[in-house]
């Protein structure tokens, strides 16, 4: 499903060159649930950004569904992100000026579907995360756990095959973190491929495979 072949990511400024990732070889198979672990600044989020087509590798090949995508243009990559990939972020990234329902609808705005269909899909996603009672609330009126559940609903509303989660429980207490993790496990059981970056060993142990990164290198 996702294949990284000898991937390298270097950030360059006029004076400094920072190697964020080096020689990364990783394959994520369909239906897998893997976690990426490592200390802060080791390159976990960079790796997730590359897999999510939010950034381009400096070297190496990145394949999604067997297609080498590093040379594709913005429009194609945006479409691929929209159709195939869902993102969950540590800080939720909800738009505070939009209601829960409108937030969940965001990925669908970039698809050619009617507003009634959009609404239906968003309601279904919210039902999935147990938030149908809060659809007209604004993010500021929700708890952290509820906000992350909205973010999960937004990530799954377009029925993507891949879910990329960047420390999804990092800002939550253990109980709420557990709830979110249960949701992710459930989604994986429904055949969604999940790649999760985490610091939390307990959460990582609930995934099928752990990939460890240290100083930009894959160590396990």
């Amino acid at each position: 499903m996702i294949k990284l072949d000898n991937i390298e990511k270097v950030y360059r400024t006029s004076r400094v060159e920072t190697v964020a990732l080096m020689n990364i070889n990783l394959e994520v198979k369909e239906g897998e649930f893997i976690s990426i672990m490592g200390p802060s600044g080791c390159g976990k989020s960079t790796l997730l950004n590359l897999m999510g087509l939010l950034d381009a590798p400096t070297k190496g090949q990145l394949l999604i569904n067997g297609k080498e995508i590093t040379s594709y243009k913005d429009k194609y990559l945006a479409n691929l992100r929209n159709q195939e990939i869902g993102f969950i972020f540590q800080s939720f990234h909800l738009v505070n000026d939009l209601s829960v329902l409108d937030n969940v609808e965001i990925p669908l705005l970039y698809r050619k579907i009617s507003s009634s269909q959009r609404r239906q899909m968003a309601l279904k996603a919210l039902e999935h995360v147990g938030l149908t009672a809060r659809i007209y609330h604004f993010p500021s009126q929700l708890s952290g756990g509820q906000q992350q559940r909205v973010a999960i609903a937004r990530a799954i509303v377009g029925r993507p095959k891949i879910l990329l989660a960047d420390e999804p429980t990092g800002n939550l207490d253990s109980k709420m973190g557990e709830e979110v993790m249960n949701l992710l496990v459930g989604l994986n059981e429904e055949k969604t491929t999940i790649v999760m970056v985490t610091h939390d060993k307990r959460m990582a142990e609930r995934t099928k495979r752990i990939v460890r990164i240290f100083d930009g290198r894959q160590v396990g």
Partner: protein
Amino acid sequence: MIKQLFKIVWNRKKANFLIMMEVLISFLVVFLVMVSSIYFTDIYMYPLGYSYKDVWAVQIDTGAYNPEADKLKEQEIAKKIMQAAKDFPEVEALAGINVIPFDNNEWRTGFEFAGKSYSPAINYVTDELPEVLDIKLLEGRWFNKEDDAISETPVVINQALSRELYGSESAVGKVFESGLKSKKVYKVVGLVSDFRDDGELAELKSYMFQRNNLSSTDTEKMLLVDHFIIKLRPGTPAALEEKLVKTFTSIAKDWSFNIEALEDIRYKRMKSTLTPILTASIVAVFLMIMVALGLSGVLWQSVTQRIKEIGLRRAKGATQGKIYYQILGELLVITSIALFVGTIIVIQIPLLGFLNFVSIKVYVITLLISWAIIALLTVICGLYPSSIAANIPPAEALHYE
């Protein structure tokens, strides 16, 4: 998507209020500048109704007003002066006139007609005026010897007065009474398109010429000529002015004379009208530049505050183009709301009785042009912030602090 734009703009109403106010104020400034510019451009396009090239105006000052003065004797002297001017080979034609074109002077007369009051501008002129000022008649004739025999007072009117009095009917041959005690009866003998004696930038008005018969001995029918205008051969040197004054002074030693080309009088009049307009326009241009800079700043700040959201939208499938058009689209929605409010405000101006001299046509054109200018200005101001927003790499935007 349009519904989403309106929703976002509405939900961010507090943040968008400042931009909306900037757009609204700029619209009002542009509207006020444009309404005067378009009004003057519009009236400038109307025909002047005469030619002022190679025409000089002579003003006669008979000294302090003396009610006991022998009017007939003074008229005789004035006629001698006019004859002396006519004798110069450089002078092609000469006519007596009460109000000189472009001179900051106006005479009005008042009368009632069909139950309505009218107060057109009036000018007392001699029979030779069309030759001097190249006035073309649309209908009827100019004053001539025939008028000595008619009992009514002959008048030539402009189209505006004709329309006011008779609508689409022909005015020539019709009569109306003056509002004076003497109940003077006017007879329309001719129609001209217009005679804009205040110049091209003055408001259009109803106008009538009354015959000044210098050969009449009836002081009611004759008005002392204290101005006359002369048409000169092209290329006549300015030195003629001195010769003319000398000749006139030899006829009337106690009188003084002032000679000035109509072109010079027109220039002075134009200058006095245009100077405040140009000053206001320059101030408005500077104001617009300040508004544009302010608007760009506010938009740029607004985009900066939304970088994370932009990153999120990019992550969720928005292309650079979609982000670009979303920011511009939001700006256009804000602009449209501000223009809507602005339009409601400017519509009140004529409803409250201000700017009545501006026609509906000019008002509508001004509204359309002001809308276009503000829309263009906001789009130009929004291009740079939109392009910044569209070009932020999504990974960077998501982690922007």
